């Protein structure tokens, strides 16, 4: 029997540091590890004793790519603990800035980090050499998302205008309305990119995933809804811990998320899309059909297309919210310190981001639990790797390694987020 080891010590084109190790014994896949060894930063520990109002700013530092996800989950959780109700105008402004994060994060990943895998190139700069218009379009689209975040939040990385209760200052209507033309352009650009990328040569791979996401009866979920799945899960956000658990494994500084029964599940664009296809706009559904996608996508390599459809949606939705924008008055709901517990879950670009805080009578954090999307996807990423490797044994080590990296990048893993990092090794024993 020939032994083969495929190993990537430091994965490129992902946020954070990770590795992969696969060991094969003939046709048998003996071991698959998606390793996250981003050094731990201990957010849940050092939050204890801090003023609850600091949690949005502090937890935004978990991730520079999706700070809004942390800010919004933290805000909603603390607001629940302090028993305040947010106005619909504030909720709409939150949804608007969140759309900005989806646009910039998804565009960065789809066009600049993931697309090179399908083109056999190392990066977007190489794409620019043969197709500068494509890269310029992607950069402009990414900038549309950042402009939304800057307009409402002050800056794109770690915005400053968001707070528990709402916003420090309601943005000027003129500045918000000025976003609309570029958002309209962005919706069309995202559609064009989705159709262009639909021509990629996708590996044949389908899996019957357990898709977990927020589900809302009226809206494609971003900051609202119950936690549900394609297998009938339908729970309140408060009941997260009754249905999900986190395991600590030796090869990871991330805790791995699993269902209580030990099974893996998938969060992120494929799950949101499958569980909420009917709430996409008709234009986004039309793009999906033109790109050859049904209402459920089970080929993980096609997540790149679903991300771009979500960019189109986020542009359309942001334009709608900008047109309807009325400055919230007051810009935030005041909060008083009080003992309580709060739970919140919002849809980070990579999937549900759950926060749970217990606050004491002085308004200080007693207990914090943060479950980022990538740690929830980690067991499913390993399962995908095992499946893809088993299907791809005839590939050379170099090509197999490439395919493994591509499989991981299907998830747009945010390794910094999961507190934690990844390396790839494939052992062919």
């Amino acid at each position, binding site marked *: 029997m020939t032994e083969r080891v495929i190993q990537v010590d430091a*994965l490129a084109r992902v946020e954070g540091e990770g590795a992969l190790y696969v060991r094969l014994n003939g046709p048998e896949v003996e071991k698959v590890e998606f390793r996250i060894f981003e050094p731990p930063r201990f957010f849940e520990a050092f939050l204890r004793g801090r003023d609850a109002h600091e949690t949005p700013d502090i937890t935004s530092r978990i991730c520079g790519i999706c700070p809004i996800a942390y800010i919004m989950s933290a805000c909603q959780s603390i607001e629940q603990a302090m028993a305040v109700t947010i106005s619909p105008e504030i909720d709409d402004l939150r949804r608007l800035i969140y759309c900005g994060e989806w646009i910039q994060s998804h565009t960065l990943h789809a066009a600049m980090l993931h697309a090179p895998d399908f083109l056999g190139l190392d990066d977007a700069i190489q794409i620019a050499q043969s197709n500068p218009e494509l890269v310029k379009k992607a950069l402009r689209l990414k900038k549309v998302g950042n402009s939304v975040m800057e307009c409402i939040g002050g800056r794109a990385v770690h915005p400053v205008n968001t707070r528990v209760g709402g916003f420090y200052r309601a943005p000027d209507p003129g500045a918000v309305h000025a976003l609309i033309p570029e958002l309209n352009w962005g919706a069309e650009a995202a559609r064009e990119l989705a159709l262009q990328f639909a021509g990629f040569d996708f590996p044949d791979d389908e899996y019957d995933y357990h898709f977990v996401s927020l589900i809302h009866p009226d809206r494609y979920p971003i900051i609202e809804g119950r936690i549900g799945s394609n297998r009938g899960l339908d729970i309140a956000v408060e009941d997260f811990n009754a249905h999900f658990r986190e395991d600590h494994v030796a090869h990871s500084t991330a805790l791995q998320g699993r269902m209580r029964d030990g099974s893996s599940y998938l969060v992120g664009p494929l799950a949101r899309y499958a569980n909420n296809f009917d709430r996409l706009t008709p234009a986004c559904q039309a793009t999906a059909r033109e790109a050859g996608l049904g209402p459920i996508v089970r080929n993980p390599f096609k997540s790149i297309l679903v991300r771009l459809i979500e960019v189109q949606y986020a542009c359309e939705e942001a334009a709608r919210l900008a047109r309807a924008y009325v400055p919230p008055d007051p810009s935030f709901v005041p909060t008083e310190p009080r003992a309580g517990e709060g739970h919140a879950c919002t849809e980070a670009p990579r999937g549900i981001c759950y926060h749970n805080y217990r606050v004491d009578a002085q308004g200080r954090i007693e207990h914090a639990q943060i479950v980022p999307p990538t740690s929830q996807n980690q067991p499913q990423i390993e399962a995908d790797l095992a499946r893809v490797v088993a299907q791809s044994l005839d590939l050379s080590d170099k090509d197999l390694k490439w395919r493994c990296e591509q499989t991981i990048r299907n998830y747009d893993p945010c390794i910094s987020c999961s507190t934690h990092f990844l390396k790839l090794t494939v052992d062919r024993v």
Partner: protein
Amino acid sequence: MARPKLAVWKFASCDGCQLTLLDCEDELLEIAGALDIAHFLEATSAISDGPFDISLVEGSVTTADDAARIRQIRAQSQTLISIGACATSGGIQALRNFADVEEFTRAVYARPDFIDTLATSTAIADHVTVDFELRGCPVSKHQLLELIAATLAGRKPHVPRVSQCVECKLNGTVCVMVAQGTPCLGPVTQAGCGNLCPAFGRGCYGCFGPKETANPPALSAQLHSLGMSDRVLRDFYRSYNAGAPEFQKESTSHD
């Protein structure tokens, strides 16, 4: 002439400062044309070996392996620049420096024995010689572009170390502390963010770290008079630049 080789390195961080480089949407292709991007894992699979003309380092040192790795990077780098609060002061994760890291590990992980970490989170300059430190949590895109342009031109970057108050004056922002009694670290914090928080009616929270010749005790007296307790004052200085010497000293004096 060969283009200068650029490397971008990550230590303990959120990736936001590296992302700021990719957020230079209008300039990115030009930067890629002026520099040979030899190592930038977040953006490209193409990796070439050192030595490197310019190394940008994001993140803080929190493991023994990383302490060794930064020395190797220094040895291969003509110019080494640390970018962002993690790299210049240890970042938010330096809050462990004021606590018991073993207790932290037990609080977060079911199997503390799987975790290998140092008791402290420290700045890059605590380990190797650094040619320039660019502040911010995150760094400013404009300052990052100025830094790259200056380094390519062989000149000193124009990054003033004046206070955030100067930015308020330049922008005509009304002082939030004087006018509204809002606690603000602006008088002791370095300018450069673009006058963000005060312009939104919020006090500066110090994400660019101490300005040159900062005088925190004088500011603390003012903050006390606004009704801040010692505990709140301590935490005010103890955040994204908790490990910066001036902020660390002041926060500890309110322990």
